[in-house]
């Protein structure tokens, strides 16, 4: 479904964000990409979505080498993808119903009655059919994320991309979203990529996980393998230890001379 080989990318050529990334995501699976904030996870997701073009290497997505496609063909490919943004990114000037119906109205010639039925089915799948006429401002964070999920699956995409789907949710909403990701993937025959730094939630739903640090893949395996990993970074990350290969302190000059030199008052 997605194959990435020797992929490198930098917003500024002098400072690459991703180095030699190799990964493979088989059809039907839920794969996690984990790592600290700023390690390049979201950038990798954007390369897969054809938002950015790699400097080197190749990314094969849904059978096409996405970096070589022109804008029109990238758009055509994106109709087979769905993406859940970190905070939902719902259109604030539209009701929940219109948000979910958006893609259907833009890309299809379906009559309104059929769109109404489809939207009701998508909202039912995330448990929010009763909220169809609410505006996004009236939704809680967890509800907004579920509506965004219903919108992302509106045209039955084969590849789902989740950008930090668990951030800022209460434990109940978090559990709901995690369960939805897994059940939707299995019942709709999708393939899902979940970019996240929430270890427990992510491990509970993924089949396979890639760990990233400083723009490189440092480890990969099933969640069980990762729990038992001896790799220093992985065990620090999984256990949430403050110090390890990722230091607690941001690089700074020596403490004592620095204190002595600091102006007082």
């Amino acid at each position: 479904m997605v194959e990435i080989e020797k992929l490198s990318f930098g917003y500024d050529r002098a400072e690459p964000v991703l180095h030699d990334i190799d990964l493979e995501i088989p059809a039907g699976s839920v794969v996690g990409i984990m790592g600290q904030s700023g390690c390049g996870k979201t950038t990798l997701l954007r390369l897969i979505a054809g938002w950015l073009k790699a400097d080197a290497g190749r990314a094969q997505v849904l059978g096409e080498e996405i970096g070589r496609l022109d804008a029109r063909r990238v758009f055509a490919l994106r109709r087979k993808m769905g993406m859940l943004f970190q905070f939902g990114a719902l259109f604030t000037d539209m009701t929940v119903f219109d948000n979910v119906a958006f893609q259907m109205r833009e890309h299809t010639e379906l009559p309104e009655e059929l769109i109404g039925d489809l939207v009701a089915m998508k909202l039912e799948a995330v448990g929010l059919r009763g909220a169809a006429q609410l505006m996004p401002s009236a939704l809680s964070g967890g509800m907004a994320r579920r509506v965004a999920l219903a919108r992302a699956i509106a045209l039955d995409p084969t590849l789902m991309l989740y950008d930090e789907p668990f951030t800022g949710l209460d434990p109940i909403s978090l559990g709901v979203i995690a369960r939805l990701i897994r059940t939707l993937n299995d019942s709709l025959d999708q393939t899902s990529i979940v970019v996240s730094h929430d270890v427990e939630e992510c491990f509970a739903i993924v089949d396979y996980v890639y760990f990233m640090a400083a723009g490189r893949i440092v480890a990969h395996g099933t969640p069980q393998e990762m729990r038992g990993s001896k790799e220093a970074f992985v065990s620090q990350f999984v256990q949430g230890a403050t110090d390890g290969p990722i230091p607690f302190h941001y690089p700074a000059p020596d403490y004592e001379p620095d204190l002595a030199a600091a102006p007082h008052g």
Partner: protein
Amino acid sequence: MAELFGRLGTMVTRRVWQLGYAARFFAYVLMHSGTALRRFGLTIREMYFAGVMSLVIILVSGLFVGMVLGLQGYETLQRYGSSEALGILVALSLVRELGPVVSGLLFASRAGSAITAEIGLMKATEQLAAMEMMAVDPIARVVAPRFWAGVLSMPLLAALFSAMGIFGGYLVGVQLIGVDEGAFWSQMQASVDWRQDVLNGVIKSIVFGIAVTWIAVFEGYDATPTAEGVSGATTRTVVTSSLAILALDFVLTALMFTGGNAR
């Protein structure tokens, strides 16, 4: 000294680069206006927000500007014993200058700033990115309808401003001060030329509409996606549009009302 020149050079290069970027953006908006014109409902909806919602400020300001023109104009004209010409003075001032310029300035601060803030916030909350991810071009779907709504609303607002201003001048001049009503209207009708005055005023308002809305959509789309970024972009829209209106007004007036066209 070298550093000063270096900084100056960087500043100029950046400005020129940004101007080029804005021009390319303008061309892109025009090229992707198909959706806005084909699905005209999208543009009509934005005309409601940009145009209809600006009506109160435009009409009230027009009325007061016309009333002040009536007072000031009468005060000056009566010194020369030609207070009947008040109708001409009020109508020409409004149709040629104040209508397009003042309604343009009001439009920039009322609708232009709103357009910038809305697009900027859509960018900051990833709504534009979400749209792009759904294979919908945000320039065609979000920017172009707002652009055309602004361009179409502006001349209508300017016309209403002028009409309201003339009514204000009439209220003060005729009803309050007592200038002869027949003279007020007939002199106005005799002296205001359709092509020379009215049409030129309409052309001005269309040009201002294009300038203000272009600046507004560009600043919104180009805004840094943070709270400060959006607030800075909104301020820039009002400042840049106001300066653009005044500068363009001078250029247009020079082209329209001087040289071969002089009356």
